[in-house]
């Protein structure tokens, strides 16, 4: 079968090297030869965790696990070697709550409630029996976005009403091997069901009390029925009640969305009244209640957002004339300044917190974290919040959150020190896959510093074999090239007007076969008669590429 596929591939002459991977995805056959799936990162500045001093060293990751991390070990013979030159290696960041990678099912349109006060659970937003795993969507663009921002682990929840269902802990590779841990938490929010009961926050809270006490009663009855069912009525237990048994028993952690400070108070009161295990998410500026949070000993996922001071314009002509107007603006400004210190104040009180991106743009993560650091949060605290603290609150600190032998090989590489200055992501390893991110360091047109015109050979190291071909660069104008990529099989792809920036070039194109479209992206750097870089192949990951000059144009 495999040979047949190979033959077919050659006969059709697919472009480049991706075809077998696609066929693997499409055809079900017995056994694919295991790729070595080993990466060796050498020479990076390694930040194992917030509490460890960084050092220059090497990391070997095999099959998604950190096999070795130290100052001096050598590359295993079968590893894909990635040489890092003064780049910074961190444990992959953890997003404590997001809807990335989850496709929430549509509300059943046929569902109706004759009495708005007694809707079926689904209309009421009560779906604790749903599981994110059942709604996993590897193609979610959000995963790639998070990955590009340095997040390798996501706590992914369904959207919905007051109780959306069980969450999952996934990597951001967007593949079928998606779980970081099989722990499932519960996700809840103060969200009413519109025209149906419960529509207001007071009814949502009342419903919580009702559901938890109902679940406790159901479980007690079920246990006594199991012990001696003779003469006992059968238990009648709704699936919502059953799904809440672990929450009611304090065996399952509830992640509760709060979004405003008053709701933080309310969630804490609810937790205390019902004796639940709870962590709060989407937590806004809560510095005014920092002492309370500290004494209540509850973990937080701070919303990764910061006050936007540009949201309104000041009418300066009124400032002098209108005392009330200027007083209000002054008050607002000091409110902003206080809010900016939020994370720093919470850290000072030793409150455990991480960050969640829910509802916010993950690509702004670093900008926001640097702002928090400018406002008093220490670099170590910020680092800890993005990694180990989040891991602890999610109960995954044994498998990820820091770089050490045996933990998952979830890591990110930045060109600069992430917690000090604006840094670009170079690599992310998540779910055992290497991604080179397309963040171009100098994407603006810098002058070409080398002449690359000519015919070059290339070799791409994919897990199962090395793929070869040639690339012809024809200079169209100064620093601008037409590029033709010719695969070993003879198929070619032509691109025009690609800029050479300094000694670097990036180009990508869409490649379609059998209705399957994949984005192929080259990212290479030239040095004399060689080039080096990476090729990203859609969801299959990113692979190293090497090239050398065969001949100059005549």
């Amino acid at each position, binding site marked *: 079968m495999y040979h047949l596929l190979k033959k077919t591939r050659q006969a059709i002459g697919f472009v480049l090297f991706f075809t077998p991977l696609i066929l693997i995805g499409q055809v079900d056959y017995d056994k694919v030869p295991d790729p070595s799936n080993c990466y060796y990162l050498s020479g990076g500045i390694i930040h194992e965790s917030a509490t460890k001093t960084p050092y220059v060293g090497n990391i070997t990751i095999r099959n998604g696990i950190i096999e070795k991390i130290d100052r001096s070990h050598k590359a295993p013979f079968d590893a894909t070697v990635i040489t890092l030159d003064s780049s910074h290696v961190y444990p992959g960041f953890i997003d404590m709550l997001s809807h990335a990678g989850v496709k929430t099912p549509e509300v059943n349109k046929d569902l109706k409630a004759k009495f708005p006060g007694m809707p079926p659970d689904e209309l009421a937003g009560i779906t604790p029996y749903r599981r994110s795993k059942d709604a996993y969507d590897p193609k979610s663009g959000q995963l790639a976005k998070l990955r590009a921002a340095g997040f390798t682990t996501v706590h992914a929840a369904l959207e919905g009403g007051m109780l959306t269902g069980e969450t999952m802990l996934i990597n951001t590779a967007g593949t079928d091997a998606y779980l970081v841990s099989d722990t499932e938490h519960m996700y809840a929010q103060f969200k009413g069901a519109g025209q149906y009961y419960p529509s207001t*926050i*007071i009814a949502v809270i009342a419903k919580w009390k*009702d559901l938890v006490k109902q679940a406790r009663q159901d479980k007690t009855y079920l246990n006594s029925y199991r012990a001696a069912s003779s003469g*006992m*009525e059968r238990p009648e237990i709704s699936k919502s009640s059953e799904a809440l048994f672990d929450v009611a028993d304090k065996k399952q952690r509830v992640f509760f969305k709060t979004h405003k400070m008053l709701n933080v108070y*309310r969630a804490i009161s609810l937790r205390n009244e019902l004796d639940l295990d709870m962590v709060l998410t989407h937590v806004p500026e809560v510095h*005014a209640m920092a002492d*309370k949070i500290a004494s209540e000993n509850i973990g937080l996922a701070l919303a990764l957002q910061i006050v936007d001071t540009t949201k309104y314009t000041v009418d300066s002509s009124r400032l002098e004339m209108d005392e009330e107007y200027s007083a209000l603006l002054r008050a607002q400004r000091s409110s902003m300044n206080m809010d900016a210190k939020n994370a720093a104040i919470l850290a000072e009180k030793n409150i455990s917190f991480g960050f969640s991106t829910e509802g916010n743009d993950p690509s702004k993560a670093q900008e926001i974290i640097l702002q928090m650091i400018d406002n008093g949060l220490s670099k170590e605290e910020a680092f800890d919040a993005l990694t180990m603290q989040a891991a602890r609150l999610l109960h995954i600190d044994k498998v990820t959150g820091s770089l050490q032998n045996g933990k998952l090989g979830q890591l990110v590489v930045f060109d600069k020190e992430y917690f000090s200055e604006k840094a670009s992501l170079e690599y992310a390893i998540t779910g055992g896959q290497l991604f080179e991110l397309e963040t171009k360091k100098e994407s603006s047109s810098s002058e070409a510093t080398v002449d690359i015109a000519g015919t070059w050979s290339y070799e791409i190291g994919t897990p199962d074999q090395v793929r070869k071909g040639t690339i012809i660069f024809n200079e169209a104008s100064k620093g601008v090239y037409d590029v033709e990529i010719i695969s070993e099989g003879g198929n070619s792809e032509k691109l025009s007007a690609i800029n050479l920036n300094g000694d670097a070039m990036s180009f990508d194109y869409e490649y379609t076969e059998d209705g399957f479209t994949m984005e192929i992206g080259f990212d290479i750097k030239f040095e004399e008669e060689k080039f080096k870089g990476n090729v990203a192949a859609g969801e299959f990951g990113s692979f190293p590429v090497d090239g050398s000059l065969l001949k100059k144009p005549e």
Partner: protein
Amino acid sequence: MKRVTYIYIGLLLLTMQGLYGQKDILIKNGTLITITDGIKENTDILLRNGKISAMGEDLAEGNAEVIDAEGLFVMPGIIDAHSHIGIDAVNEPTNPVTAEVFVGDAIDPYDIALYRALAGGVTISHAMHGSANAIGGQCETIKHRWGEWDPEAFKMEGAPRTIKFALGENPMRVHGEGKNVAPRTRMGIEQEFRRSFAAAKKYRTDRNAFASGKIKKGPDYSYRLETLADILDGDILIHCHSYRADEILMLMDVLSDFGVNKICFQHVNEGFKIAPELAEFGAMASVFSDWWAYKFEVYYSTAYNAAILTKNGVVTSINSDDAGLIRHLYHEAAKTQRYGELTDNEALRLITMNPAIQLGIEDRVGSLEVGKDADIVIFENHPLSIYATPQTTIVDGIVRFDINADNNDMRMFIDAEEALPAFYETSEEHEDKCMQGVHLHEGHSHTHSHNHSH
């Protein structure tokens, strides 16, 4: 995404607490209006550990902070038995019976209306569920501890549980007209009560039988029926929105049938017609001084209502139901002297001792007595004078309002992203608080736009 952020604009206020919080306060040489023990002129009153610890002439100052009240009137903090300030949600209008919901779960300590109420001498208000449902939610008696961040700090510890009922047009309109479910008529509302109490009675019987091992399977847990059963057990005081005499008599009949006797009728505009019947039942009444005609069932009204009820022995209070009116309840009480010739003490009881009785907190507040909570308001001019102005309002021995420390902007929090506070240069249409959160079906938009309905 609205992000509310907070700053310490109330810094002055907090400083005040710092100064007074742990300290005794000695209010010297005021005219004490005790409510329960006459007027005491040139008398001192000492506040210690949140309580009134002594009253008398020339009390020793010790380390106390002294407030000179010479020429001023010192009275117990005003109590409003019907209000909706300081809470985030008022109505859960999806079901005609929502006994399980509790507005105390959604207290908003930063509602500026609380501070304004303090400026009107009000130290306690009864934060109520709205009147959309026949049996609405449970209410919370809150102390106006302005300056505290924690909503829990506003709950009056130990105050009895209360619950909102409603008769008449509001529940009929919301459910009958609005959702095409029962109740659509006044008769239907009676059946809501009867059905609910009957269900609760059965639930309670089964629950207790299961608890004592008489049956092997108890009823499915229901927070709603648990709450209703608590009403039957007399653990929750009913406060019922009402206007028409016939309906009020109906509810008293229903309660008699189920052995419930703790009730305070709210609004009660036709209470004057049935004052002896109310008194005989032991029902109480919390009314407006002179507010009516905002809907059909509220036309037959009189400003003599409070006086007639009082003279017939009904424990009567005057309430605000409104963030504006709560700022001058003393004026509202004074109107009973023009309409009904109540004495000073009878008039002031309407906003102190009587609402305290209606909320079941009369042993703690409502009068100036040694041992009671140090909830005090100091007036310039007699509180029933049209020139009366509260100077200082004290809750549990802590100054929460001081007219001399009142800044223009007393907000607890400031939204850092909001262009300007809503109260500055935008005047939003007054929202009907009693029906807050209720959206009726199209064709009844007039219910949104008229100014007040209760």
